């Protein structure tokens, strides 16, 4: 802006040719071409992911036709396969994961941005980042061998008390028999979702924390000055300002939950029926299906798995694009140099 106001001065001094400011040439042109080349490469790589899956899965999809989305079983060698069961299973696991991760991430993000003493903020942020970096196979070990057996009472209690809610019922269970095997409550959608929830919590949390810390200090102090308690301030200032960050972070977490593979594959016992009872054993997801069937698949089986992978890819892509659009909107108008 200041250059604009100095224009009259330039007009007042007409002597000497006006200096032309052209984009620097030579080396810089090569540099920019190199940069653009890298950009093209990355864009090309990312775009071809979908293309390759599509062309490899095309044959399988054309064989199955519309049955691909409506069949529940997975027997590609007899050309009788579909993703109805695994797709529903993926969505159920992701929903449970969000139900677990959202409140936890919200609490943690609020703690770091509003409650924690100043010296604790950085270590806590690091720990959340570390939680995101812990390999999923480690979460899988924890969930499959410890948590679901130690906490088996929780799904039992839930299913006995709330069996009138359709999806919390466990049909195979016999609550009147004290010697009934406990494993009807394990290896279920619930436990897979719980562990995946812990895995996606840090991703949701870091987006939320970032948006919470951007709540303007003036409004915060204004709320306090009007006599608000800390929770009142959070509810009236921090949460409204962080709303799009909360939504975007949650969707980002959803995208991750949909694609989580190994932890889910380790916890569930796979079934190929739509399993609406989230507490009952037996569940499935697209990625777990691919991981488990990959080793022993025939050539056509591989094509069918590619088609399933394509479905998963499209699903996560839609969710992720929506998430980054929401987050980008929450960041709009904020430059790096304030």
């Amino acid at each position, binding site marked *: 802006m200041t250059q604009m106001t100095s224009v009259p001065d330039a007009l007042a001094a007409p002597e000497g040719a006006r200096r032309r400011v052209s984009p620097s040439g030579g080396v810089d042109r090569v540099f920019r071409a190199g940069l653009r080349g890298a950009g093209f490469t990355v864009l090309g790589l*990312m775009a071809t992911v979908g293309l390759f*899956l599509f062309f490899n899965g095309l044959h399988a999809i054309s064989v199955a036709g519309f049955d691909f989305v409506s069949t529940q079983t997975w027997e590609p060698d007899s050309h009788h396969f579909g993703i109805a069961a695994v797709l529903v299973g993926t969505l159920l696991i992701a929903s449970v994961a969000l139900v677990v991760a959202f409140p936890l991430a919200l609490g943690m993000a609020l703690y770091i941005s509003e409650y924690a003493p100043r010296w604790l903020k950085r270590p*806590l942020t690091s720990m959340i*980042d570390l939680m995101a970096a812990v390999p999923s196979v480690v979460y899988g070990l924890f969930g499959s061998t410890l948590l679901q057996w130690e906490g088996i009472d929780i799904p039992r209690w839930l299913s006995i008390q709330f069996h009138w809610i359709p999806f919390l019922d466990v049909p195979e269970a016999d609550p009147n028999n004290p010697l009934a095997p406990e494993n009807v409550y394990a290896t279920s959608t619930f436990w897979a979702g719980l562990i995946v929830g812990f895995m996606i919590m840090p991703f949701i949390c870091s987006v939320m924390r970032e948006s919470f810390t951007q709540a303007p200090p003036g409004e915060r102090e204004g709320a306090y000055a009007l006599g608000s308690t800390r*929770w009142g301030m959070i509810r009236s200032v921090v949460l409204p300002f962080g709303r799009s960050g909360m939504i975007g972070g949650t969707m980002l977490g959803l995208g991750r939950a949909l694609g989580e593979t190994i932890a889910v594959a380790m916890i569930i016992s796979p079934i190929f029926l739509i399993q609406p009872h989230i507490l009952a054993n037996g569940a499935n997801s697209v*990625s777990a299906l691919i991981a488990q069937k990959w080793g022993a698949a025939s050539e056509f089986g591989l094509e069918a798995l590619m088609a399933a992978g394509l479905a998963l890819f499209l699903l996560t892509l839609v969710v992720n694009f929506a998430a980054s659009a929401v987050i980008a909107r929450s960041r709009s108008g904020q430059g790096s140099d304030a």
Partner: protein
Amino acid sequence: MSTVEQTRPVAAPATPPPDPAPAGPETRRDTRSIHRVDVVAVLGALVSAAALTGLLFDQIAPFSGVVGFIAIAYPLFLGIYALLLSLEENGLTIRDKLVSAVVHSSAILAIGALVAVVIYPVIMAWDVLGLGNFYTEDMAEAGTLDPLELGGVLHAMVGTLEQITIALTITVPLGLVTAVFLNETKGAFTRLVRTVVEAMTALPSIVAGLFIYASLILLVGFERSGFAAGCAISIMMLPIMIRAADVVLRLVPSSLREASLAMGAGQLRTAWHVVLPTARSGLTTSVLLATARGVGETSPVLIAAGYTPYLNFNPFDGAQVSLPLATYQMWTSSEDTMQTRAFGAAVVLITLVLVLFVLARLLGGRGAGNFSKGQLRRGLRASARDRERFIGAARDRGAPGPVAHNPVAHSPIAHSPIATNPDPGPA
């Protein structure tokens, strides 16, 4: 407020004169947000909730075990805490404190979960971690029934290191250049690349594996190998690294960039000598964090490399296992020894991730333009050298004085607020 009340006592007719005690030094108003009453209330609620749960436990409660205990004690704690608060506080305060308790406990739960997830494999693998052969042998000799003294995870460690090296060789140059691209150019194409990269950060890792299988193995004709696995990992790491580096580069103050451009430096020189060095620690962090994520991925290796119990140094030939895949495969065995080995492999993997992570925090975590002590010393030394050089040059030209006047202004870090200190260090 209080001073006004105390120095001008309200006239109280027909009562004894105001107490002389306030005439002394005023007591300071307590502005702490935590009072003893609060702490006592929290502790009391905790103790009574634990005691009540102990009473209910095994008698009425439907739960058993640690998880069950906590599941009952926690709602009880909240209830009792609310009850205690309601004795002397109003509804607004009760709600505030209850929310505070919930927020604190969710933080404790998250940290507790992290600690439990990391510690549990260590406990389970304790028997095998002390054995030397676990780190020096592969599983070629050891069957599922062999004792822990035979066999180890050397093959998986070698595989992990080679695969992550391959992935880094692809990802670091491409990722960093793309991050610079996103920051140095503007326009529709840049925006498109940024949007696609952001959407791809959550690309399911198994899809990355499928992509490499479809392209590199089916189309180009490579076999399933460590190289293919490294490529699959790099597809997964690339968006993560680009995004982290992009954020770091965006934090480089544009005043620095503009100063460099105003001095007549071109775009390449500005990027190479100003932008990248300023963001160096942040870029290191982004590379290390992406590495930590890539190291732990199981499914790309499962699809692109496959499992083998043998040590395979050649990433271009035949199956090559990595630590997470070895963990997964050993865990699927029902034998106790194999499961212990699986936990051992997981511990090695966690240690690797932790080391990478701590390195990232030690090296990086500094904002752009904030220097460590060593960097500051080096910068000051460079300034001092420049000063000598300028003085020498001026003397050679036979014009002492004004040129050597303000050497700090020419120093490479003169823009940093710390370096504006007039003392140029050891001159």
